[in-house]
């Protein structure tokens, strides 16, 4: 396996007296999709927020591309090459779809235009709706926009939080396919999902979480084959 792009050791994320994530060890390499799977409240979103620097009470070691992320702001982490697609899309509602894309770019105007065109090629539906305010987009379109917006930053690692939540199956599939394509282009993807089947179908490896801790990990294929483990974690 290639050297890990992201290495996490003993990560703990706490809110007041509650530890949402506790003692998590994890690594993600360039070109692979790693799925974080668990029921609601398992700590997946808190883990991603902790990696992005969006939570104040984080302990443990996080190394990204050789840089220690301790104490770095979300801004610095983004500029190192970490992209973030938040749960619930959280597009900028009063801005058009195109403005949502443009604002995320740190390149000059010409490069920004080129990158925007690349995003429209990846998500043709966004090109059609480019001048619509983001709040008018459908859930699926907003999710595409949230992913495309993060890709505007040309991330080396993409953190994606519940991208299929509330989407129609076909739309969810197309979003997942795009994530697979992102990994194929050389970036790493860490995908938090409640939809275990969808996540396992696209991931190379999977990490199963329960109550803030890692319960099991392995290749996506092996995890997908362990029905009993999946049912016990997801409560199905």
């Amino acid at each position: 396996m290639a050297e890990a792009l992201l290495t996490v050791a003993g990560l703990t994320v706490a809110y007041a007296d509650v530890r949402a994530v506790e003692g998590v060890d994890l690594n993600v390499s360039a070109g692979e999709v790693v799925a974080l799977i668990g029921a609601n409240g398992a700590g997946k979103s808190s883990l991603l927020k902790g990696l992005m620097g969006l939570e104040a009470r984080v302990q443990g070691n996080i190394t990204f591309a050789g840089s220690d992320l301790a104490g770095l702001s979300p801004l610095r982490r983004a500029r190192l090459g970490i992209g973030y697609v938040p749960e619930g899309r959280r597009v900028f509602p009063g801005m058009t779809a195109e403005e949502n894309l443009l604002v995320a770019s740190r390149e000059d105007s010409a490069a920004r235009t080129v990158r925007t065109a690349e995003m429209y090629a990846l998500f043709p539906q966004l090109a059609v709706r480019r001048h619509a305010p983001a709040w008018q987009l459908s859930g699926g379109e907003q999710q595409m926009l949230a992913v495309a917006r993060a890709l505007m930053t040309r991330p080396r690692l993409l953190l994606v939080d519940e991208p299929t939540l509330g989407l129609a199956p076909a739309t969810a599939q197309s979003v997942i396919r795009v994530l697979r394509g992102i990994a194929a282009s050389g970036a790493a993807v860490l995908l938090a999902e409640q939809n275990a089947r969808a996540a396992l179908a696209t991931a190379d490896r999977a990490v199963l979480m329960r109550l803030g801790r890692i319960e099991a990990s392995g290749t996506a294929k092996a995890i997908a084959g362990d029905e009993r483990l999946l049912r016990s974690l997801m409560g199905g």
Partner: protein
Amino acid sequence: MEFLQLAINGIALGAAYALVALGFVLILNATGAVNFAQGDLVAAGGFLAVALAGFLPVPGLLLLPLVVILMAGLGLAVSAAAYWPLRDRPPVAVFISTIALGIVIQNGLNGLFGAEPRAAPPLFSGGHLEFFGLVIARQSLAIMGVAALLIGGVQLLLKHTQLGRRLRATAQDREVAAALGVPVGAMVALTFALAAALAGVAGLLLANQFFITPTHGTDFIVKAYIAVVIGGWGRVGGALAGAMLVALFETVVAAWTDYAVATGLLYAALLTILVFRPQGLFGEAEGRRA
């Protein structure tokens, strides 16, 4: 004809109020907090113009760039003193800290300039023009022109530049903006600078139309607050329309009744709007702000 005359005066006054309200909304959207010192920054801008005119006896238009630059600096200081240390606290903390800072500004102005009313120089020159029987003060025209240019400029900045997009993204979702690499701290500080510069220009304009005193800021913040509530909390266009409405009450309605009655009617209108349309005349469901 009398109505038209009054309406022109009201639009000129409303243009100056609109600058105050615009700055108020920009900070409200960027921080989620009310900057209660915005009115005192108007007074500070007026006194700054008075002070600069003492050193440089030139028309107000030539003082305007200096007022903009110095007031932007003051806005950065307001951000550092009243917002930055409290940025992770609930918005009400900033509301209270800006009230405190406003009191400091009022007393600072009182100590520096005294309590007597003062007047800033006109933008070009005094006097008036006549069009078809309408008498229009040159200063009123200048106020409308300067305010239109500034408001248009701010709109261009917000809608058509990367800096403007970053300011808006910060205002709409600071956490996500930061995760995308937007320097949100700098964006908030810039918003304070922009709002203070707008307040300063309003101060320069109004300190010629009316005398200004160190405690005058309270009037301005109340008017800006009413304008923003009427227009729709956080709506830029609504705040500008609300500012015009406030000014028209002060001119047109006051001329037909008297100032006290007009003020009472303005508050009655405000209450009526709040009862029947709590989101303001141009407000929409939360999450759709431009």
